[in-house]
């Protein structure tokens, strides 16, 4: 059985591993070059030209290679998963394969094992090579926990690939049409991935809460909201951590309504609350030089009553999150594969 599974997979495997090899060469060259640049320019995550310059200089390359990491599991689901059963059903060859002296579940097990392992291998290798390749950039940018970057690095791609592959296989078994199965794979995969990244991930562990004095907040400004001009605190930069949200709270730790903030600003620093400029009130503003003093004193006054709290996932949870997310997708993939077995055994009769 393994021979047939391997023989049928030969061309697809050549394409997949060939592409991986080409990307590997590209990433090896790039990775070594980036290391040279880093050594020449930077030390201990700090670059002489500034982090921004080093990072933005290569952001296109990083985005393109990273896009490949994101796309690889989906491509695997489309071109390795969806046709696995569907093409046999379409072409009628399942009637040949399933009437030899081997149970169809063994047939499926052989195919799933071989192509499934190849899937996680390709996606995992690509992701790890990418992680290595751009690590000089990441060590300066220090944002690997952020949305997007998290999905492109480390081991999560292994889970994504297993999930996408099993999804394609099951969709192919159910629909019996490769193209329809591909369509379903795209929709479900993208949907589940977005749901995970944008919805579920931040709740995998309860976030850490940290308070900051408003005077210590790097990006404090005033914004014209529907309730009037209110102070707005940006989140402080936490290296390699994932900042989820921030808000201004009072001494009791409760969130402060916008109306209360506006009242406070109007009462204590009226010049900030109703700026003299004719265009005033529209959009965020940081203090212009003439108003600098008023701005600073207003912030000082505010910080006597209020402070900012930031909710975030700390940097040391990065690998825990990677492992959790990979495990979740591996389990999803295993469930879908089990569904594939059930379908082939019970429903295709």
């Amino acid at each position, binding site marked *: 059985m393994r021979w047939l599974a391997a023989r049928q997979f030969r061309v697809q495997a050549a394409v997949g591993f060939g592409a991986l090899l080409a990307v590997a060469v590209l990433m090896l060259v790039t990775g070594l070059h980036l290391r040279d640049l880093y050594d020449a320019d930077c030390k201990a995550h700090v670059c002489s030209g500034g982090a921004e310059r080093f990072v933005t200089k290569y952001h296109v390359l990083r985005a393109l290679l990273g896009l490949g990491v994101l796309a690889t599991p989906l491509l695997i689901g489309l071109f390795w998963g969806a046709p696995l059963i569907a093409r046999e059903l379409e072409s009628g060859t399942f009637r040949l394969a399933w009437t*030899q002296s081997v149970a169809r579940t063994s047939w499926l097990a052989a195919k799933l094992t071989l192509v499934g392992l190849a899937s996680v291998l390709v996606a995992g290798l690509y992701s790890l090579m990418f992680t290595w390749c751009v690590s000089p950039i990441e060590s300066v940018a220090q944002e690997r926990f952020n949305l997007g970057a998290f999905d492109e690095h480390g081991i999560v791609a292994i889970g994504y690939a297993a999930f996408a592959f099993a999804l394609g296989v099951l969709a192919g078994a159910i629909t019996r049409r490769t193209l329809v199965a591909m369509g379903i794979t795209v929709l479900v995969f993208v949907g589940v991935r977005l749901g995970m990244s944008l919805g579920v991930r931040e709740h995998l562990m309860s976030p850490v809460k940290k308070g900051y004095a408003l005077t210590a907040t790097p990006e404090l400004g005033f914004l014209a909201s529907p309730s009037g001009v209110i102070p707005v605190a940006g989140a402080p930069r936490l290296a390699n951590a994932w900042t989820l949200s921030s808000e201004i709270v009072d001494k009791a730790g409760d969130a402060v309504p916008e109306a209360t903030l506006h009242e406070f600003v109007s009462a204590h620093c009226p010049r900030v609350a109703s700026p003299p400029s004719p265009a005033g009130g529209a959009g965020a503003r940081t203090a212009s030089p003439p108003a600098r003093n008023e701005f600073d004193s207003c912030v000082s006054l505010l910080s006597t009553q209020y402070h900012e709290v930031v909710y975030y996932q700390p940097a040391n949870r990065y690998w825990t999150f990677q492992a959790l997310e990979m495990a979740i997708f591996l389990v999803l993939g295993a469930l879908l594969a089990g569904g594939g077995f059930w379908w082939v055994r019970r429903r295709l009769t």
Partner: protein
Amino acid sequence: MSTAALQTHGLGKRYGRRWALRNCTLSIPVGSVVGLVGPNGAGKTTLLHLAVGLLSPSAGSIEALGEPVGSDPRHLTNVGFVAQDTPLYPTLSVAEHLRLGESLNPGWDRELAGERIGRLGLDPSQRAGQLSGGQKAQLALTLAICKRPELLVLDEPVASLDPLARREFLQDLMEVATEYEVSVVLSSHLVGELERVCDHLVLLAAGNVALSGHVEELLASHRRLTGARRDPERLPASQEVIEASHTDRQSTLLVRTSEPIHDPSWAVEEVGVEDLVLAYMGRTSDPQQARPQLSAVRR
């Protein structure tokens, strides 16, 4: 023979609300070559897929070589199958198909496979996708026969072949069946092709078994009567009318009877398999009428 090559009891298969096969009861003795005939959509493929475990019954039971089909995958070792349109992997070569057969069947007869490929003139390195229809059918038959089954099931194996390839294929099949003592069930809507090779006949129409039996007995028990026009109802009770056609003056009846026909007013003729099949196919538009015949026709 103690076990039947194929035996079904009240076998039925339903797709949604439609019964593709219904209340099918058959017994095919070991060593027979059975022709399964019937119009397109009569349930032939469904019955054959049930026989090889590609489908599972919605009702009733089916046994091949004395064991319930699908109970144990090892059971497939003894059943060879050539599916409709002889599906093969187009990118795999002839030799790779043999390797496929060898790796998936414990009883694979490598010698026979090599001998057959040589005799059929197939190039082992040629891809199956480039073979002609006849060569594909021969390769598919080789795969099925080299696992050395006791029962060989073929679904419309000659439907897509030209007349010459058809004859060669059936001849080859018969030689193989005789040499290796394989029971054969093959379906076709070309009755004439089957007449030459089958000793058993099963006629399916609209999902029901319309006729089943040993070909010689079926032919011996049916006669065509031609004579002056008369009402078929007035025939002796031993003569059952299968098909009747009348002109103004003349009646032509196809009757089944186990007794000789003595009435001198009839011109009595023997019937061929094709006539018989067409006659039974014509009357199965009403299955209720056809069903009582079964017990009488079956051996």
